[in-house]
């Protein structure tokens, strides 16, 4: 190796290594270690014997972990489905309308994005106040306009709590898919739209036959982000219902269950690092597999531009 090369490589190291060190120590190592930790028995924060897949077996088959685990997974799936159906489809419609320059589109574009920059904590608390069953402005307004029957206990009813928190989250986040889809539609080459118009395509045909296939990349990314977000819901529940995912675990998710298990708030009150790590690994695997699958499935339908 020539002197100049050594010199150059030293500089490359100088530029790359500090960042790599930080990512290695605080991202890659912990990810790897949570896999390792899940294969051991733990006593408090002391690592004990190697137990293989026992911790995973506990989640899937031992009471109460199994019951809590499947309940949480179900809620995470409700989050994903609800968000896809309500938020992302509405976002697609709104993005389309804004791209069509519907009257007032400039205003909508900037207003819709406002709540996106708020913290989940602030949004959660704000709506906890508004949704208070007696004192909150939502129920007070409902009562005043004669819809007393709709003045429900939004966050206190086991059937309503999860949908209500999802709705609050959609309030915060709808602007995001809206503007991503808007950008996707705007990047469609003018020729494609022109050709369709010349062929006599109406708005409906134009949307489903031309625009929809061409914005598949945006749809893919939004779907993947929604999946990741849905499997990692935590703050929303913590702020609006507390760590136990009340009432009666009806809003419990993998995130809150993971936290309670790992930091000792489940049943025994002792941290269960082995089982907690196993839940963490499951969150990873689900996130990873789900986003991989949806990316592949949606990619297949992408149109080459």
């Amino acid at each position, binding site marked *: 190796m020539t002197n100049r090369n050594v010199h150059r490589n030293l500089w*490359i190291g100088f*530029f*790359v290594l*500090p*960042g*790599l060190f*930080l*990512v290695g*120590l*605080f*991202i*890659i190592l*912990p*990810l790897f*270690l*949570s896999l390792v*930790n899940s294969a051991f028995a733990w006593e408090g*924060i002391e690592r004990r014997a190697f137990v293989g897949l026992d911790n995973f077996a506990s989640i899937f088959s031992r009471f109460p972990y199994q019951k809590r685990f499947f309940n949480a997974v179900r809620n995470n799936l409700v989050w994903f489905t609800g968000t896809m159906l309500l938020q992302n489809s509405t976002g697609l*419609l*709104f993005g389309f*309308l804004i791209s*069509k320059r*519907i*009257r007032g589109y400039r205003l909508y574009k*900037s*207003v*819709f994005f*406002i*709540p996106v*920059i*708020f*913290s*989940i*904590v*602030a949004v959660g608390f*704000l709506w906890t*106040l508004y949704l208070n069953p007696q004192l909150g*402005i939502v129920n007070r307004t409902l009562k005043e306009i004669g819809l007393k029957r709709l003045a429900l206990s939004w966050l206190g009813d086991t059937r309503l709590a999860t949908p209500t928190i999802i709705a609050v989250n959609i*309030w915060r986040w*709808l602007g*995001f898919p809206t503007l*991503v889809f808007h*950008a996707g*539609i705007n990047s469609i080459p003018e020729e494609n739209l*022109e050709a369709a118009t010349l062929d006599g395509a109406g708005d409906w045909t134009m949307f489903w036959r031309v625009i929809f296939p061409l914005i598949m*990349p*945006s749809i893919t*990314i*939004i779907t993947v*982000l929604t999946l*990741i977000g849905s*499997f990692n819901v*935590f703050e929303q529940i913590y702020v609006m219902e507390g760590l136990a995912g009340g009432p009666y675990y009806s809003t419990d998710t993998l995130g809150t269950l993971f936290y309670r298990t*790992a*930091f000792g708030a489940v049943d025994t009150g002792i941290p269960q690092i082995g089982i*907690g*790590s196993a839940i963490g690994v499951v*969150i*990873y695997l689900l996130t990873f597999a789900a*986003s991989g699958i949806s990316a592949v499935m949606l990619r297949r339908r992408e149109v080459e531009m």
Partner: protein
Amino acid sequence: MILRMRFREAGLPGKTLYLFFELLLATYTVLILLPLVNMFLSSFKSTREIFSSPYALPREFRLDNYLQVWVRGRFGRYMLNSIAVTGLAMLLDLLLGSMAAFGIARYRYRLNTAIYLLFLSGIMLPLKAAVIPLFLLLKRLGLLNTTTSLVLVYAAMSLPSTVFILTGFMRGLPQDLDDAARIDGCSEPGIYWRVILPLVRPALAIVTIYNAIPIWNDFFFPLVFIQSDDLKTLPLGMTVFFGQYQTNWALLFTGLSIAILPMIALYLMLSKQFIQGLTAGAIK
């Protein structure tokens, strides 16, 4: 613009649908603005006034509530902590991220792609689920309950996307720039600092917003790493505050206003950059 709405030419069903869509958009706009306006107005009321006349304007615009929340509710402290943590983490992220991107994008060598992929490996995975080993690691390093722990973890968390975005930008710059600078006797750090970095300034702005907003808003890591009240950031401090003043809605709405209004002000000044920055991960 081909896509423009054609209201006049539309038939009756078309017009009805158009109006319905307008109504839908307007409804969501109101649904965003009304709660925010109500929050702001409530922050000037007393709790009794909030309950007795929730829709009315406040009887007087007193700043009492703000003073109380800022000092007794410790929002001044929490805000400073958030500024320090976000600022330091972003400085570290921008410095190390741009250096790494420079080292990846501006030199050709065998490990180039491997290093790039190593950085990217953290991009889509949620670090939250690895918080236990992270917690134990920080404990061993003696960094638990310090601002440093947050700064380091946030900087590390931001690096993958930073390297990704900046490498993309830096690869687009012509190689002649570096060569010309070298012939003029410029050192390698000089090329990085004086030639390349100024040229990717727009990308630095995108990276900053993309990472700083989630860091500013993050609640999870302070919840796990920070115990002492003096070190709490705004989102975590807010949960303490909400626990303490549960029934004092006047102060609660004031606290929310203090957390939310500066963000709105910042957004109104830089809305284009905010939208571009935050959607950067989802738009090519």
